């Protein structure tokens, strides 16, 4: 397989379903670079899973093209380097966890001599309790199935990993573990396509996130630029602070830093800031004005605003997006 800077190239992809008046995908174009973690975000029915199905060669597009490393998604060489976790893990419930991963190790073309060791390492990596290894998967909880599914996706060391809601049904330690595994994969230069509703997970892991709605990409956001986007800064003041001029001071801070005071009470204030730099200035100015800040945090992340369709007016212009 030839190595492209753009490992996955989707060009004007169209997909229709029988009996549905609207197209599921309306000419989507997107590129994913090698070693990149690319997120798909959007409401239910937006077309994220359809896009992922087309990328995996599970669904046949009605128009447009997909190439992975210059090859068709159904090419044998592509299947050798991909791993996939579906949203709803629906595994063969009569197999034990160990048998299931051994089966997929064999299907992925893994070396038989190292199978047992590889499988055990993988089950440990996803932190599946050892006493569950010999239990039939039909008796697993959703979170355990998700861990097992992740092990299945990662067995064989794939170079491209497609994950559909990997954190779904996982307990908090599971979500933390998932994040660590994904960051580890990123460090190993694996390419990840992640479909998730966990916005914080997306923000921490993804390099770019595409917002899909009604079968179209509304915007593609580069996460490294996150601090440059306008957001609401929430300031909380120490409860002991009895400053009668608190509101006056915070209004002065807002004026001096070019931000807008949206809301104020004796314990907290909400300010609309234009960027991360502006937020920093606000905090600095508060300190200079002897305001005792207990905490300062963005009220909502930029992805949350994008997801809930409430972007600040000035933000939409800054999204480096593909409005189609």
């Amino acid at each position, binding site marked *: 397989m030839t190595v492209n800077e753009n490992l996955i190239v989707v060009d004007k992809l169209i997909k229709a379903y029988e009996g549905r008046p609207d197209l*599921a995908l309306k000419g989507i174009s997107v590129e994913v670079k090698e070693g990149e973690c690319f997120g798909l975000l959007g409401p*239910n*029915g*937006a*077309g*994220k*899973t*359809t896009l992922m*199905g087309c990328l*995996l*060669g*599970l*669904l*046949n597009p009605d128009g447009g093209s997909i190439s992975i490393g210059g090859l068709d998604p159904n090419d*044998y060489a592509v*299947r*050798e380097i*991909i791993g*996939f976790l*579906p*949203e*709803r893990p*629906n*595994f*063969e419930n*009569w197999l034990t966890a160990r048998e299931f991963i051994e*089966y*997929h190790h*064999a*299907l*992925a*073309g893994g070396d038989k001599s190292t199978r047992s060791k590889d499988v055990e390492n993988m089950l440990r990596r996803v932190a599946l309790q050892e006493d569950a290894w010999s239990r039939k998967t039909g008796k697993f909880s959703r979170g355990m199935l998700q861990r097992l599914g992740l092990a*299945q996706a990662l067995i064989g060391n794939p170079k491209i990993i497609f994950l*559909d809601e990997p954190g779904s049904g996982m307990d908090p330690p599971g979500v933390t573990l998932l994040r660590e595994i994904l960051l580890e994969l990123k460090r190993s230069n694996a390419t990840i396509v992640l479909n998730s509703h966990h916005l914080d997970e997306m923000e921490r892991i993804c390099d770019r996130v595409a917002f899909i709605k009604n079968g179209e990409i509304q915007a593609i956001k580069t996460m490294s630029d996150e601090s440059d986007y306008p957001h609401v800064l929430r300031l909380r003041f120490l409860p002991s602070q009895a400053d009668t001029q608190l509101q006056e001071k915070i209004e002065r801070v807002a004026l001096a830093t070019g931000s807008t005071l949206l809301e104020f009470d004796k314990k907290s204030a909400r300010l609309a800031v234009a960027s991360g730099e502006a937020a920093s200035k606000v905090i600095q100015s508060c300190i200079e004005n002897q305001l005792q800040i207990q905490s300062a945090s963005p009220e909502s992340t930029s992805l949350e605003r994008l997801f809930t369709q409430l972007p600040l007016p000035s933000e939409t212009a800054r999204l480096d997006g593909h409005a189609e």
Partner: protein
Amino acid sequence: MLSKPIYLQTIKKILNHKMIMFALIMLGFFIPFSLILNPQNPSVSAVESWDAFSISAMSALLIVTATNSIGTALTLGGRSDYMPLIVTRPLHRFQYIIAKWLALSTVIIAVSLLQQTMLTVSGAYARWGLTNEMILAGFPERIISGLSVASVLTMIYSLPKQSLVLCGIIAFEIATGISIFSMSIAFPLPEQTSDVSTTIVTILGGDQWAKTTLLPAIFGGRAFSSVQQYATILVNVANFLAPQIHLYDMFTAKPFLWTPFLEVASNMLLSLTIASAILNAREYHYDSD
């Protein structure tokens, strides 16, 4: 060519399925035992009773698989299954089909040969008047039948919807019935008619009445030829889905003809090709978006 993991996994799955195992044990051992213990079989001739084993085995196996299909359809809605995890693996789709076919064949042939061995060793066949050559011919015949039945079942199981799978199984059962028992159908079928049954129907005047009165009254003047054409198609389809091969007859016939063997071989190839084509063309929905 053969995907060993899929092959072994499929055999394990079949052996792990309680209903299928129950049916296989019943067919493989219970029926032969009952016949061994009760050697007098007054109404059925030796060769016919031997044929009846194949058909009863197939029918019962299919009833079990149909039951399984209904259960699967109800629980999974025919949409989410584990196929997406398989087809995204480095595996050609025809390899998957070949592995499934051989696994299914292995189980069917194993049970069928065990049954044949039991009947041979117990002397049941000898008591029914089968010669040693006939009995010996039964072994490869059962292997060929097993491969053939498994190829058609593999094709049926590759269909994209549970409802289609179910229809396919029912069609297969009907076809098997027609292929084996076509001689009992009242109107004459091309090349499938038993002389005895035709004679009985002719003596009673049933065929003339059907030709000249019943069929024209229901379907119009050219009804009989239409029925004949339909019956020909039906028998051809039945022969495709459940082809019969009788090796002893084949090798003792003069002149010797390869046609039955070629027919079975071509049907197997065709079934497996169709199954691979379906698997290549179908879509795999792992979740409703």
